[in-house]
């Protein structure tokens, strides 16, 4: 009886999913720049809550740490020198060429139970900001990433959400590393520094 009650109680609670994954280092030619990266608290602690059709909290997906580990794997391959700073003020004292500050604007999850498709999907919208060491605007652009994974018989929903999110993070890393120098404002800024991409 007690076990049944406990099962009912836990069955109604929110499932916590902490996104975990390994991210490869991109094979791209690094730009000769020293870039500071600033992860604000909103990114570090980013979590998305998926609600059930009755309005109950269903899944709490924490992806802040995985985003940081992704950027920590990607940025050193893109720039000759990368430093992590704890504030925008600290970047100025480090004598860097630019400060990169990513932000998550939107996170969406599509579950097979709701979409009636045989895939789990994750979609994330980012706002990428590149600032000078003094905090002045260089570029500000939007990137979206997408990941999907098929339903499998013996895999939990939590594992499938993690898989779809990791694929979305890889998608972010690939589009960010390949499109960075093609963003018009970034390209103009690089040209101004005599860097041809």
């Amino acid at each position: 009886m007690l076990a049944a009650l406990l099962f009912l109680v836990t069955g109604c609670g929110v499932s916590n999913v902490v996104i975990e994954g390994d991210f490869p280092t991109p094979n791209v030619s690094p730009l000769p720049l020293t870039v500071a990266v600033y992860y604000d608290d909103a990114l570090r602690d980013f979590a998305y809550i998926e609600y059930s059709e009755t309005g109950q909290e269903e899944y709490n997906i924490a992806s802040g740490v995985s985003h940081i580990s992704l950027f920590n794997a990607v940025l050193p391959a893109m720039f000759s020198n990368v430093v992590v700073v704890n504030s925008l003020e600290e970047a100025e004292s480090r004598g860097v060429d630019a400060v990169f500050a990513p932000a998550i604007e939107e996170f969406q999850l599509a579950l097979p139970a709701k979409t009636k498709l045989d895939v789990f999907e994750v979609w994330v919208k980012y706002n990428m900001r590149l600032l000078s060491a003094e905090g002045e605007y260089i570029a500000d652009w939007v990137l979206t990433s997408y990941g999907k994974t098929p339903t499998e018989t013996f895999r939990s929903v939590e594992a499938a959400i993690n898989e779809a999110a990791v694929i979305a993070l890889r998608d972010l890393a690939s589009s960010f590393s390949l499109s960075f120098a093609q963003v018009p404002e970034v390209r103009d800024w690089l040209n101004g520094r005599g860097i041809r991409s």
Partner: protein
Amino acid sequence: MNTEIKSMFRLGVSLTLFALASCTSTTVDEFRQGETGIESDESVVILGRRQASDYETRSEFVECVGDRMTRGENAVSVIPEQEFIDAMFPWFEPRTAPLRTRDLEQLMAEDVVANKMNEFGVRYIVWVDGHTETTDRAGSISCTIGPGGGGCFGFGTWEDDANFDARVWDVGSLTNVGTINTDASGQSYLPALVVPIPLIARVEANACSRLASQLKEFVVGS
């Protein structure tokens, strides 16, 4: 005596169903567009296409084809898919992977990509695209559980159809040298007499085996 007849009947039904379950038909079509051949120091990489919105080529199928190509007569060296994709990151991700040989040509103009390809010794890239679809589900099984035990009774059946295309790109000439299509279908059965007995048609396994054999012959050039 009654028990013996029942056992014989169950065995007969099982054997009939097993015989039916093993009825998987597989068709392989090959379309050759260029000469092929592979040296002992060259490798093949098999990659799954994952651009479609409604399905994606399962990595398990890609792995199965690769494993089978490394075995038996005329075995070829195959680079594991994930190892290759990670090493080439970010150039072979679902959104960035080359869709045509013209895209591969542009990709090979990047020094980092060309160097990695040389390191791996890749001679052929095989793009596998397809999935297995389940149709014609019929029947029903009901299970009950009580203080004295439990059991299932009923019958279920469905058809699986696996269709996979393999396009072979020659990294040396940067051309598409051929396409192999494999189509396998079979009926699966799930009778339940107290315990459900799955009699699964090995549709995807057959498609994998036939595709791997054909691909191996294709790249070796025999």
